């Protein structure tokens, strides 16, 4: 009789463990996938790039002009001995021109085999958001921009455009 009771208790314990594991698995299944975004401004609008494509954010000290380049390639910067190109993201996306300010920053974007600085008006935030908060963009943006948009979400109550750095770099290499 005692053995039977012990066997019953063991079985109950095993079932509890299985139940707990199933619950954990279920929790993992519904866990939100987070993505990191680097949020910045261009011409009073919010834009973002995936955080894993931004190697570094640097202040704008001096951009050395290199002759013979299209006007949206501003020149190069010296980052600890490495020479990095700098792309004027405003000009590239067909936005109104403006000289850089104290708030301007250079995002050092990197994907396999290509790296370049991207000049932006200011960097607002680096944060993680659930991936499902990114929706397909239905913004009324200029044709120069729509080709490079991955999606949109909201930041501080305003629209935020997520840009596709791979497409930006690919366009630059294909031209």
């Amino acid at each position, binding site marked *: 009789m005692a053995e039977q009771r012990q066997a019953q208790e063991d079985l109950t314990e095993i079932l509890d463990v299985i139940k707990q594991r199933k619950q954990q698995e279920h929790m993992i299944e519904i866990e939100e996938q987070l993505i990191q975004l680097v949020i910045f401004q261009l011409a009073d609008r919010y834009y973002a790039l995936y955080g894993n494509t931004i190697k570094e954010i640097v202040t704008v000290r001096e*951009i*050395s*002009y*290199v*002759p*013979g*380049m*299209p*006007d949206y*390639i*501003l*020149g*190069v910067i*010296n980052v600890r001995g*490495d*020479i*990095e*190109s700098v*792309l004027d993201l405003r*000009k590239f996306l067909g936005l109104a*021109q*403006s*000289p*850089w300010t104290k708030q301007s920053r250079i995002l050092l974007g990197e994907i396999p*085999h*290509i*790296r*370049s600085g991207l000049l932006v008006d200011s960097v607002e935030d680096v944060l993680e958001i659930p991936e499902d908060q990114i929706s397909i963009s239905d913004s009324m943006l200029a044709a120069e921009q729509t080709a490079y948009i991955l999606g949109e979400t909201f930041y501080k109550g305003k629209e935020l455009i997520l840009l596709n750095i791979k497409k930006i*770099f690919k366009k*630059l*290499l294909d*031209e």
Partner: protein
Amino acid sequence: MITTIDVLLFSSQGLIFGVYTEQIEEVLTGKHRMNSGVSTENDMIHYRQQKLYVIDFSLYLDQKRRHDSPPGAEKTDPNHPVITAAVDSSLTSKILVVKLPQHEYMGIHVENVVKILSMPLDQIRTLPAIMETHNSIPGLWGLTFVDQRLVTLLDLTRLA
């Protein structure tokens, strides 16, 4: 062992360029060009009983800059205004006499020669990928910093 190359630095439009010294046969004063009586973008001067074709490097750069602007784009960059002036022959300007293959020469009229130095090869970087694709100056092969100023390295024999 660090390998070095001998480079002559010259200035034009406020920028510094570097060229292999072995490509330079001689450095003449800019007055040679003024004495020839012509002041157009590209012209000839007399050199060793021959006529030497001279490129005004400032106008050459200006031409490249304007050429690069896509149709309809702003022609001036607020951070880098376009300079449209030929090299002033009466000041400190120099004509670099460049050795070309088959014993030919070409002149490059520049604002000034800054200095000649031995440059370690490991300090020279090739053009970043994006720039390599868009570069419109033949012979632009590398970049480096000297005294915190950018030096654009040129192979002058490929310039014309």
